[in-house]
C-alpha cells in the first residue's frame, strides 16, 4: 500500500487548517508563500504517484481496512495514470492561480488561501478516490469551497446572484448523485466502486438505468453540459479571476472525469450490450452543448462570460469524446482536457490582467485600449489558436484522437461539430483580440448589441501602471506548456496506454478487491494518417481568423437575408439564459427527465 497516496489530500487540508488557526497572526506574504509551497509539494507528490501509477494502479486503503472475501470494508484510493494526471494538472492550475493572485485583491486575508487549499485538496481527492460515497463527499467539499470563492466579492449584488445560481444548481446536482448512489447501494450493498461494478455484473434493469441517469446528470450539472450549463456563465461573470481559472480549467472537467470513471468501472458491465444507446444519447447531448455554447459565446461582450460559454462548448466536445466509448477517444478526451484547460486558464489570466489595468472586461469598452500591451496580446492570440485546435497544440492531439475514434465507429460527422465549435469560439476570442489589442472594428456592434453590459468592479489595487510579471508569467507559461505537450513525441501513445487501463473494468476490480497484478500493455503505435486531420484543423483555425476579421470589418452583413432566422434563434437562446434560478432548475428537471426517457426508450427498443 502506498504511503504517498493520501498526501495530495491531507497536506493541503492540514496547511489550510493551520493557516486558519493563525489567521489573525500571519501576514499576507507568509500565507501566500505557504499556500504556494503547499501547492508545489502537492504537485510533486502527484507527479511521483503518476510515475508509480504507470507501472500499476496505486492503492491505499484508509484505516488499513483491506477487503475481505471481495467485500470492501473501508475506503480506497485507486490511482491510475489518468487519475494521477488529473491531480497533477489540478495542482498546476492552482499554482498558476495563486501566483496570479499575488498581486491581486486588496482585501484578501489568509482566508482566501484557506479556501483555495481546501479546493485543491478536494479536487485531488475527487480524482484519486475509488469509493462512490467518498466521491460525493469530495464533490461537496469542492463545491463548498467553490461557492465561497465564487461569491468572494460580496459588495456586488450580481456576485451574490451568480454565486446563488451556482450554489443552488450544483447542490441539486449533488443530491441527484446521492440519490443514484443510494439506489446502487440498495441493489449491491456496497459503496466501493469496484465492488459495485462486480456485483452488478451484466444485468440491466430500471434501477441501474435510473441510477446511471441520476449520477450522470448530477455530474453533468457540475460539468455544465446542456441543459445544465446555465450556471457557468453567471458564476464566471462574477467570480474573481483566479477562481475563474480554476472553474473553467479543471473543475468542470472533473465532472466529466467523474462520469467517465463511474461509467467505466460500474456501468459498462450492465450497458455492454447497449453501448449504442448510450452513445446515441451522449453524442446528441454533446453536439447540442457544443453548438449552443459556441453560439452563445459569439454573442457576448463580457469577456469572462464569453470565455465561460466557450468552456461550455468545449465541454460538449469532451462529452462527444466520452460518448464514442473507445480508448482512442478516451485518450483524446484526456489530452483535450489538458490542452483546453491550459489555454483557457491563460485566456482568463489575460482577462484578469485587462481588468487590473483598465477596470473593465467589456469588449466594447476596452476597444483599442490594450494596444500597448503587445506581449499580452500575443499570449491571448496564441491561446485563441489553441481553442481552434490548431496543430501543435495539445487540443489538436485530443481532437484527432476523438475524431479518429468516432470515425472508427462510423460517426465521422462529429468532425462538423468540432469545426463549428472551434470556428465560433476561437473566432469570438480572436475578435476580442482584434478589438481590444488592435483597435479594429467599431466601438458598437450588431450581434453583441443585445448582450447586457455587466459592471465589473475592480478586483485589485489602483496600481495600474504596467503589467506585473507575476500576472503575465503564468499566462505565458501555460500557453507554452499547451504547445509543448502538443509537440512532444510519444505523448499520444502514453495517454492511450493510460486510457486502456482506465477502461479495463475487470482489471480494475481485480486490482482493488484482490490486489492482483494487472497487465499494463503499452498501446500499439498508431498508423492512421494524420494528413486529413491536419488539413481540417488548419482549416478550422483559418476559418476562425476569417470570421473574427469579418465580424470586425464594416462588411459584416447585419441586414443579410439569412440574418433574420439566425437572429431570432440567437435571441431565443439568449432569452432562456435569463439569470433566473427557477428557470435553471426547470431546465435541469427537463434535462434529467429527457435523459431518462430517451435512454429507457432506446434500450427497450432493442
Amino acid at each position, binding site marked *: 500500500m502506498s504511503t504517498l497516496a493520501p498526501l495530495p489530500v491531507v497536506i493541503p487540508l492540514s496547511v489550510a487548517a493551520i493557516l486558519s488557526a493563525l489567521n489573525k497572526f500571519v501576514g499576507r506574504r507568509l500565507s501566500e508563500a505557504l499556500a504556494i509551497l503547499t501547492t508545489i509539494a502537492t504537485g510533486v507528490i502527484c507527479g511521483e504517484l503518476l510515475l508509480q501509477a504507470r507501472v500499476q494502479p496505486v492503492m491505499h486503503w484508509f484505516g488499513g481496512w483491506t477487503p475481505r472475501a471481495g467485500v470492501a470494508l*473501508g475506503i480506497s484510493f485507486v490511482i491510475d495514470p489518468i487519475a494521477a494526471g488529473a491531480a497533477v494538472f489540478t495542482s498546476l492550475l492552482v499554482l498558476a492561480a495563486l501566483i496570479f493572485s499575488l498581486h491581486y485583491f486588496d482585501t484578501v486575508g489568509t482566508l482566501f488561501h484557506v479556501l483555495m487549499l481546501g479546493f485543491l485538496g478536494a479536487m485531488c481527492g475527487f480524482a484519486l478516490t475509488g469509493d462512490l460515497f467518498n466521491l460525493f463527499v469530495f464533490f461537496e467539499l469542492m463545491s463548498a*469551497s467553490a461557492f465561497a470563492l465564487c461569491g468572494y466579492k460580496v459588495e456586488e449584488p450580481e456576485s451574490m446572484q451568480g454565486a446563488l445560481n451556482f450554489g443552488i444548481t450544483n447542490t441539486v446536482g449533488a443530491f441527484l448523485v446521492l440519490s443514484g448512489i443510494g439506489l446502487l447501494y440498495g441493489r449491491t450493498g456496497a459503496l466501493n466502486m469496484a465492488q459495485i461494478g462486480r456485483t452488478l455484473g451484466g444485468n440491466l434493469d430500471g434501477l441501474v438505468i435510473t441510477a446511471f441517469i441520476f449520477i450522470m446528470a448530477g455530474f453533468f450539472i457540475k460539468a455544465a453540459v446542456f441543459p445544465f450549463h446555465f450556471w457557468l456563465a453567471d458564476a464566471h461573470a462574477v467570480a474573481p479571476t483566479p477562481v475563474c481559472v480554476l472553474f473553467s480549467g479543471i473543475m468542470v472537467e472533473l465532472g466529466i472525469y467523474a462520469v467517465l470513471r463511474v461509467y467505466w468501472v460500474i456501468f459498462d458491465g450492465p450497458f455492454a450490450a447497449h453501448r449504442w444507446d448510450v452513445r446515441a444519447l451522449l453524442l446528441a447531448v454533446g453536439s447540442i452543448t457544443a453548438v449552443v455554447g459556441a453560439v452563445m459565446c459569439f454573442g457576448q461582450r463580457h469577456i469572462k462570460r464569453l470565455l465561460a460559454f466557450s468552456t461550455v462548448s468545449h465541454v460538449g466536445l469532451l462529452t462527444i469524446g466520452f460518448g464514442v466509448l473507445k480508448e482512442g477517444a478516451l485518450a483524446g478526451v484526456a489530452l483535450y482536457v489538458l490542452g483546453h484547460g491550459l489555454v483557457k486558464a491563460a485566456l482568463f489570466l489575460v482577462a484578469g490582467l485587462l481588468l487590473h489595468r483598465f477596470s473593465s472586461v467589456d469588449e466594447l469598452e476596452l476597444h483599442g485600449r490594450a494596444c500597448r500591451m503587445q506581449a499580452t496580446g500575443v499570449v491571448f492570440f496564441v491561446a485563441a489558436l489553441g481553442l481552434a485546435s490548431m496543430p501543435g497544440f495539445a487540443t489538436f492531439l485530443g481532437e484527432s484522437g476523438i475524431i479518429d475514434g468516432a470515425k472508427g465507429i462510423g460517426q465521422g460527422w462529429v468532425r462538423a461539430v468540432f469545426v463549428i465549435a472551434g470556428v465560433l469560439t476561437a473566432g469570438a476570442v480572436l475578435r476580442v483580440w482584434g478589438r481590444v489589442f488592435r483597435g479594429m472594428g467599431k466601438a458598437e456592434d450588431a450581434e453583441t448589441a443585445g448582450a447586457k453590459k455587466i459592471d465589473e468592479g475592480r478586483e485589485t489595487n489602483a496600481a495600474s501602471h504596467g503589467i506585473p510579471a507575476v500576472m503575465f508569467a503564468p499566462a505565458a507559461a501555460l500557453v507554452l506548456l499547451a504547445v509543448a505537450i502538443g509537440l512532444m513525441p510519444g505523448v499520444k501513445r502514453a495517454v492511450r496506454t493510460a486510457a486502456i487501463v482506465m477502461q479495463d473494468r475487470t482489471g480494475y476490480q481485480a486490482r482493488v478487491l484482490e490486489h492482483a497484478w494487472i497487465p499494463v500493455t503499452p498501446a500499439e503505435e498508431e498508423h492512421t494518417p494524420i494528413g486529413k486531420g491536419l488539413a481540417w484543423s488548419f482549416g478550422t483555425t483559418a476559418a476562425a481568423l476569417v470570421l473574427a476579421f469579418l465580424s470586425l470589418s464594416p462588411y459584416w452583413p447585419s441586414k443579410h437575408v439569412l440574418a433574420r432566422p439566425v437572429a431570432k434563434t440567437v435571441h431565443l437562446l439568449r432569452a432562456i439564459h435569463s439569470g433566473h434560478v427557477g428557470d435553471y432548475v426547470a431546465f435541469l428537471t427537463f434535462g434529467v427527465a429527457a435523459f431518462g426517457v430517451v435512454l429507457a426508450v432506446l434500450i427497450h427498443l432493442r
Partner: protein
Amino acid sequence: MNRRGRMILFLLSAAVFGGVYLWGLKGLPPVGHYRGPYGDVLNQVATYERHVTDIVTAVNFDYRGFDTLGEEFILFMSVVGGTVLLRRQREEEKSEHKDQALSDESPERQAPEPSDATRVLTLGLVGPLVVFGLYMVAHGQLTPGGGFQGGVILATAPLLVYLGGDLKKFKQITSHTLVEVAEAAGAGGYLAIGFAGLILGGAYLRNVAALGRTGVINSGGTIALINLATGLEVAAGFVLLLYAFLEQTLEIRLRGGK
C-alpha cells in the same frame, strides 16, 4: 422565461422525472428487507475488532473515517466561507470607528429586551446543555451520539446566551480568536490522528491507539480521540457561523432595515 412558461416546462418534466425515479425505485428490495453485505459484516465484526458498542460511530470514525474527515472539512470550509462572505466591508469598518453613536452601545443597535421568562428559561438551560453536549460527545463509542451530535448541542449554548441576553454578552463568552483556534485545532487534530496512523501503521487513519475494554468510555482507540476532536471542531464551527450571522443582523438593523 415568464412564470407560466417555467411552470409548464417544470410540471411536465417533473411528472416524467417522477416516473423515472419511481421506475428505478421499483428495483430496490422492499423496505425492511435490507440485503447487502456491507452492514451485516460490520455489525458482526466491529465490536470484536474495535471494542465499541455503537457501530455507527465505528463506521463513521474508523471504517469510513476518511469520509468523515472530508465531511468535517466541508463544515470547516463552509465556516471559513461563511466568515468570508459575511465579512465586514471597508465602509462598515470605517463607520464603526467614526461615531460613538454607531457603537454597540447605541440604542439603534440594541434589540428589544428579552422578557423575564425568556431569560430564566434560556440562561437556566445553558448549564445542562453544556453538560449534556459533553456527555454526548464523550459517549459516542458506546451509545448513539458522537462528536457531531454533541458538538451541535454544545454550540447552541452560546446561542441561548444571545437569546436570553444580548450580543454583547454573546461576544463576551465567545472570544472570536479562541473559537477560531479551537476549530482549527479540532480539524487539525483529526488530521494529526490520521497521520499517526500513517506513520505508525502504514495506512492513513489506522486505529493505532490502545483499544481498551468494550463498554467503558475510553474504548475504541483513536475512535474516542477523533470523537473529541470532532466535537470540538463542530461546536467551534457552529459558534463561528452564528457569530458571523449575528454580526450581520446588527449591521442590517443599523442601516434601517428590518
